[in-house]
């Protein structure tokens, strides 16, 4: 479990509040999406969570241990892959990296070897375990970094942009693996990403930061539901657009977006289309995705 209470970081003489009274509680086995535009305060929050940065005020507890006062116990609960850095030694092999990071976490050599074998096999790297990580593809390097973060089987894992720069196949592997870690092993995963489709697919809960403050912290479904636009419908027709409608036709399919004040008005629109001989292919209420929600949240004052 991750508990963040009234976490604040103020920088310099100008008293810039990079993080302002942020509170979050992330339950065990949750994949938690921590989102925000650049400069929102995500990285600062993550660094305080990882014990790399001292908060001006507030508290972070990992698995019940205060990061500031019980650092050693808190770090034993935690593994991280940080964005923008290699995280592992490129001049060492995947095996050597895992052995080092496992022992650094205080595990005995035999235990680390056992765990490293499982992780490398799961990630499809076992055959290349003795190759230097520097010679790996970006996706393979990222897999080694993730394995290093998980080598001591920590109950809490921070993954900062884990799929950034990965190809489709590697992204799929990493996503499946994150889901499996949380659902089957009960690992709490804090995921930060700008790839909102990844966040939407993986996260049980999402928080959005803007200008150092949380502007949303809700289960993903609930967050999406709050932004559902009850008055917008998408009508798809076979063939060309009928006259009198604002429509887009592409590859033989016409799409019409209609906005109504009462859902019953949709019947009238459909009736008008039928009268003009249009062939209805589908009629759906427009559902926002996480990108729509995110853009709405970061461009307006707090919503949740």
């Amino acid at each position, binding site marked *: 479990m991750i508990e963040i209470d009234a976490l604040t970081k103020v920088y310099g003489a100008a008293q810039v509040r990079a993080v302002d009274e942020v509170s979050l509680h992330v339950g065990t086995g949750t994949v938690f999406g921590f989102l925000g535009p650049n400069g929102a305060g995500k990285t600062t929050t993550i660094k305080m969570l990882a014990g790399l940065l001292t908060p001006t005020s507030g508290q972070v507890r990992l698995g019940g241990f205060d990061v500031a006062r019980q650092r050693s116990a808190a*770090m034993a609960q935690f593994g991280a892959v940080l964005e923008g850095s290699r995280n592992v030694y490129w001049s060492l092999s995947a095996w050597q990296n895992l052995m080092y990071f496992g022992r650094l976490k205080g595990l005995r050599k035999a235990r680390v070897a056992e765990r490293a074998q499982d992780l490398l096999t799961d990630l499809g790297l076992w055959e290349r375990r003795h190759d230097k990580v520097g010679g790996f593809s970006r996706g393979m390097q990222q897999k080694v970094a993730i394995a290093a973060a998980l080598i001591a089987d920590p109950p809490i894992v921070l993954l900062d942009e884990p799929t950034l720069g990965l190809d489709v196949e590697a992204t799929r592997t990493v996503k499946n693996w994150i889901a499996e870690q949380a659902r089957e092993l009960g690992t709490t995963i804090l995921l930060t990403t700008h790839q909102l489709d990844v966040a939407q697919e993986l996260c049980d809960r999402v928080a959005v930061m803007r200008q150092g403050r949380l502007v949303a912290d809700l289960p993903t479904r609930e967050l999406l539901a709050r932004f559902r636009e009850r008055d917008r419908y998408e009508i798809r027709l076979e063939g060309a657009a009928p006259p009198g409608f604002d429509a887009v036709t592409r590859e033989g399919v016409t799409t019409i977006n209609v906005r109504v004040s009462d859902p019953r008005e949709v019947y009238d629109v459909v009736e008008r289309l039928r009268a003009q001989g249009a062939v209805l292919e589908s009629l759906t209420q427009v559902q926002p995705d996480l990108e729509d929600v995110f853009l709405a949240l970061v461009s307006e004052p707090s919503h949740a």
Partner: protein
Amino acid sequence: MHEVLRAEIGKGLRVQLAHPVGHVITLLISTMMYLGLQFVLGQGELRQDLLPQTLVAIGGYWFLQYAGLVMVADLIEEKRAGTFAQSQMSPAPPWLPMLGRLLTASIFGLAVAAVAALVPMLVAQIAIPLRWAALLPAVLLGVNALAFTFLLASLALVSPMIGALQSLFTSLVLLLNGSFLPLELYPDWLATAARVLPTTLGIEALTQTLFEGRTLTQLWTGGVLPWLLAHTLALTAVAGLLFARNHRRALESS
């Protein structure tokens, strides 16, 4: 704790040995530099009366120079690559991986110093008497050099100018610690100034036991040993304070 230390040393050795060319070049330079230097200073000949004492000093210099180089280069690279931050997100206290790095650096420093001393000994037939009394001064010389390496490493955590500072100090050490001429041939004021630098007092203590047959008691009453201890403690204290201050700043900027 031992597991962490062993892991850190093992990792450090593997990382360093993954790129052996730099080490081989340093070994070649270290073996050639001393004899070349003494040949020039002796105006075309190797002066046997000066060789033993200066050889001990050049060994001290190489230990300091190479341990410092390995330590600082390793830290800068780890900070850049993000592995420094990773190593700090562990249950181990922050100083423990640092100690492991220091011990790794000392292995490389010792290897270069040993080769830098042994090759001239064989080539120029330099005899160095071995005495048990020299063991403690030798160990203290090493600890003194490592305390300075720790200080450099603590500065390297935050200072972009560390390369220039390191070059400046190691050059001064080479010039003044007795690698060119024994310390007793310096003017008093220069010998006093040289003793402020790392390794000089350790070399003085070591040469007094090896070549003058002094006992540890004589070293203590003569003042060399207390000064060496005080110098080492002062270096360690300053380095420790700098580490405590800069470690946090290094993580914040990582």
